[in-house]
Structure formats: structure tokens, C-alpha cells
């Protein structure tokens, strides 16, 4: 009997056949090959733009862990991004640390800060968490300006960018791009592993039904705090890479707008999917630079409208739409049962 005819009763949740894993691997390999090949074909400015897409993707990966997978909202992830960026910058500026070492330190600082803020914040219901994180994002800018001796105040800090080693034969923009690409791939592997583990299952459980999760033995406050700290860590790592790439940090790069833009990018890219952060990164990078030509306010109008529209018609964002489209294509290819 063919399985397709037995759909007499309506399924409560439409089941989608998971695509053959081989397709997924082929797609990923293709994507990675394209990502490695791209910087040799593009002009330096476009390489820089792609680098920034990857930086945002890492930050969004962290935000996604919290918002998409654990169902907690943060309007202040720009603050953790800034903490990572400033940690990296201060280490380079003050202690002349070799730049690869700044990444784990910056990520660690963001993680600890996320943990410290997560303990009180996670006792709060969703809405209040949004309030607290928003207040943190607003408070950070004057705080950075205040401690001028360390942070350089409003003027910020200017740093040398990592120079490409002689053996590689790469230009500076290409070298920065590959550094960022390595961090991005590592971050994605880490996030994917995390989500497949016990932690990931716990996060999904508490997102979908807190009461049920608690009954199953998930310690809500522990896992919420952990999700907050992990997601702060990813944002901090992204901030550190940002410092490498830009070579300059100043408080006004990390206003509350950054936090809100990150959330907007994630929602449009797709909550709760692994490809969402990449699409979100593309969105955050290219929508403003393209639409700014029309009017200074055009990016905001587009962001705002798209967020609302996406929440209505496609809560899974661009990633969800892409997956649906890909699913249809794959279905057309006959496969062996």
C-alpha cells in the first residue's frame, strides 16, 4: 500500500518529510566552497561587506540561541557585542596581546557578564527581560564614554588591523575575511552541537511549554541563564572580530539602534533556524546600504514594516521560506525509498 493515500484524518501538525541529509551536506559544501572562492573574485569593498555579514551572522547566531531556541527576548544584544568589541580593543591597545588570543578572552568576558546579568534577569517574565535588556543597552553608551582612560571616551580607540602573514600571499581584506570565516564556521559548529545536545533539547522544551519542561526535570532558571550567557558569548565573539575587521571602536557604534537592528535582522532572517542568522546578516548589511540612497530613513521604514509583516505571514522568516522552497524542489527529484 502506498503511504500517500492514507491521509484520511487531518494531521494536527503538517508533517514535512525531512530532506535527505545528503542534500543538506552537498548544499553546505557548495556554500562553503563559494564562501572560500568569493574573496578572490570581488573588489576589496565587497569583500569587506561580506566580512561584516559574517560578523553579524555570528552575533545573530547568539541572539537566535536566546530568542529563537529558548524563547526569551533580548533588546540589548548590542551591549554584549560592544563588550566583546571593547574587550578585544582594550587587550590589543593596552597589553599588545596577539590578536588570536583576544577572541577567547572577549568571548569569556561576555559570557561571564551574560551569566551575571542573566541570574537576576532570568527570574523575570519575558516582558520584563525585554525591559531590562533595553535599559542595559541604553546605559552602556554613557558608561563607555565615562571611563575615558580605558575606553578612549567618545573618541574611541583606533587599532592596527591584523596583518596577513607573508606565506599566505593574501591582501589585508582577504585575510580578515578568512579569519572571520573561520570564526563563523567554528561558531556555527558550536551552536549546532549545542542545540543537538541535552542543552538544546532543554531550551526547546522550555520555549514550547515551561510547565511541561519543568515537570520533565528541566531546571528553568538554570537553562534560561545558561542560554543568556551562551548567547552573550557569541555576541561578544562577534564584537571582538568586529574590532579586528574595523580597527576602531567608539561608543556611538554600539547604541541601542544596534541592538534593535540585530533583533530585526534575526526576525527577518528566521527565528530558530541555523540558516536564519546568515540571511539576517545579509539583510542587516545590505538593506541599509542599498536603501540609504533613497532616504536616510528608508532602512528604518523597511526594517519596521518587514518585522511586522514577517511576524504575521512568515514567523519562520526568510530561512523558513527558503526551506519551504527547497523542500518543494527536492520533492520533485525522485528518490529511492
Amino acid at each position: 500500500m502506498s503511504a500517500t493515500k492514507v491521509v484520511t484524518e487531518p494531521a494536527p501538525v503538517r508533517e514535512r518529510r525531512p530532506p535527505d541529509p545528503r542534500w543538506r551536506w552537498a548544499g553546505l559544501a557548495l556554500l562553503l566552497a563559494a564562501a572560500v572562492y568569493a574573496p578572490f573574485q570581488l573588489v576589496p569593498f565587497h569583500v569587506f561587506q561580506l566580512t561584516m555579514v559574517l560578523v553579524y551572522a555570528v552575533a545573530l547566531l547568539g541572539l537566535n540561541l536566546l530568542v529563537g531556541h529558548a524563547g526569551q527576548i533580548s533588546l540589548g544584544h548590542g551591549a554584549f557585542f560592544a563588550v566583546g568589541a571593547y574587550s578585544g580593543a582594550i587587550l590589543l591597545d593596552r597589553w599588545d596581546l596577539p590578536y588570536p588570543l583576544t577572541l577567547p578572552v572577549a568571548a569569556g568576558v561576555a559570557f561571564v557578564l551574560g551569566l551575571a546579568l542573566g541570574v537576576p534577569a532570568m527570574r523575570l517574565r519575558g516582558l520584563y527581560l525585554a525591559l531590562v535588556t533595553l535599559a542595559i543597552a541604553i546605559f552602556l553608551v554613557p558608561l563607555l564614554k565615562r571611563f575615558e582612560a580605558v575606553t578612549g571616551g567618545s573618541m574611541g580607540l583606533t587599532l592596527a588591523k591584523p596583518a596577513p602573514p607573508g606565506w599566505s600571499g593574501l591582501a589585508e581584506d582577504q585575510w580578515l575575511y578568512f579569519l572571520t570565516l573561520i570564526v563563523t564556521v567554528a561558531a556555527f559548529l558550536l551552536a549546532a552541537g549545542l542545540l543537538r545536545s541535552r542543552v538544546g533539547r532543554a531550551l526547546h522544551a522550555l520555549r514550547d511549554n515551561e510547565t511541561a519542561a519543568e515537570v520533565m526535570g528541566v531546571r528553568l532558571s538554570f537553562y534560561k541563564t545558561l542560554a543568556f550567557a551562551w548567547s552573550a558569548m557569541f555576541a561578544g565573539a562577534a564584537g571582538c572580530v568586529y574590532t579586528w575587521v574595523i580597527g576602531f571602536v567608539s561608543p556611538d557604534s554600539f547604541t541601542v539602534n544596534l541592538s534593535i537592528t540585530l533583533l530585526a535582522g534575526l526576525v527577518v532572517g528566521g527565528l530558530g533556524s541555523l540558516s536564519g542568522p546568515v540571511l539576517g546578516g545579509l539583510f542587516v548589511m545590505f538593506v541599509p546600504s542599498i536603501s540609504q540612497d533613497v532616504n536616510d530613513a528608508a532602512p528604518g521604514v523597511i526594517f519596521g514594516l518587514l518585522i511586522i509583516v514577517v511576524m504575521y505571514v512568515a514567523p519562520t522568516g526568510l530561512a523558513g521560506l527558503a526551506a519551504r522552497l527547497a523542500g518543494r524542489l527536492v520533492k520533485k527529484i525522485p528518490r529511492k525509498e
Partner: protein
Amino acid sequence: MAGFVQQVVEGLGAGAIYASLALALVLIYQFTGIVNFAQGELAMFSTYIAWQCVAAGLPFWLALVLTLAVSFAGGMLIERVIIRPVEGAPELTIVIVTVGLFIFVNAAAGWIWTFLIKDFPNPFPGGALEAAGVSVSFSTLGVLGVVAAVMGLLYLLFQHTKIGLGMRAVATNPASARLVGIRVGRTLALGWGLAATVGAVSGVLVAPLLFLEPNMMGGVLIYAFAAATLGGFDSPLGAVAGGLIVGVAETLAGAYVGVIGSDLKVGVPLVIILGVLLLRPQGLFGRAVVERA
């Protein structure tokens, strides 16, 4: 001593403005359980409408009446068009939608009126009342008076009219309210309209002090959140009390605590929000919600 009293008076003046925006936040929260992150931006947009009317040559008070009417209609429209489809959705969805509204309204104002600072006429006369070495500017007195008047009008509306009775019924229990024949949907829209009107008042009060520009209310919003949290998100009286307390606390902290100074005052609402949520999550005047899991 006079210096201290002076600081308190100035704090009350700032607090009255926070109170008016907090009042708008609380109105919406009471009816719909939504914290409207776009409240400040809606107030800013209303203020631009008032500015446009004045710039077109209308007398100030006529412009104000017109603005309040437009804001009321706009608030109802937003409830119907943007909020209605996500009513009853998870909190995350609603917060994201209001954040989207925040970005959109902010950018729309920038598009229409540019990001350049505009001068907004002060409705109150200059000068100040002097008593015992303390001077209270007429502007501060005016702000306090307007907020008290708004509070009084809302009290009359809620406690002594049929519409207000219906609104309280909806806030308490929408299902039962619907069963006794109250148009719940219409009442919710009314709540949003009222909130937008109160927000517009707060925008018009702020504008002469801060100069009119699209990001004007961004700073005020966080104080209003602190005020609403402190007073309790379901208590209009609490919002006003909270606003005044936040205003005074912020001014005193800025003036007397050397580490804070005028630049780190923004930390005060953060500390207040965190403190209240950890010690008394329902706020000073709010009801503690008992949840059955």
C-alpha cells in the same frame, strides 16, 4: 536646604513628564496585557503633528486639540490594523511587533520631517515663582498641572461613566465582559486611542524642553518604563507616583552622587527596574498575579 528643595522641584517637573508617558503605557497594559514599546515613538509622531499645525499658522491650543483628536484616531487604527492580528499570540511575538512599530514610526517621522532639530513653542509663560529661595518655573508648574488634570479626567472617565465601567470590566475579565454585552474589541481599540492621546500630551510637554526630533522620546521611554514598573504595570495611580519618584530620584542622584553625575543618570531607571523586579515584581501599587500553572 533651599538647593535640595530646588532639586526636588526640578525632579518633580521631570517626573511629571515620565508619569504622563508611563500612564499611556499602563493604559494599554491594563486592557491588553501588552507593553507597547512604540509608545514613546507614537507620542513623538503626535508632537510632530502639533508642530506641523502650529507651523501652518494655527494657534497653539487649537493645534493641541486637533493633535489629540488625530492621536486618538491613530491609536484606535493601530490597534485595529496592527495589534488585532497578534492578540493572544505569545508575548515574544507581541513585543517584536511593537518593536517593529517603534522602528517604523521613528523612521517615518524622520522621512517626513527630516532628522533636523525643530523648535517647539512652549505653551507656558516664561519666568518663575519665587518662594523661600526656591524658584519654580511656570513651565514646571504647567507640566505638573497638566498631568494632574489628565489623571483627574481619566479618573472621572473610569469611575463615573458607562464607557469607563465597560473598560474596567474588559480589563478585569474580557470573557465575562463579552458575555454581558460589552463590545470587547471596540473597548480595546478605545484603550489604545486613549493611550495614544495621553502619550501625545506627554510628547507636547517634552518637546519644548528637549527640542523636537525623531529620537526625542527614546530617552524618556526608559524612564517611563521604570516609572510603570515601580508603580505597577496595572495601576494608573502607581504610574504617576512612580513617574514622580523616578524623576526625583534621577535628579537627586545626578546632583548629589558624584560618581553618577549628569551623564550616568540613565543608569537610575535600570537600577530601579532591576530592584523593583527582584524585590517587589508587582510594583508599589500593583496587584500580585497568582498564576495557576
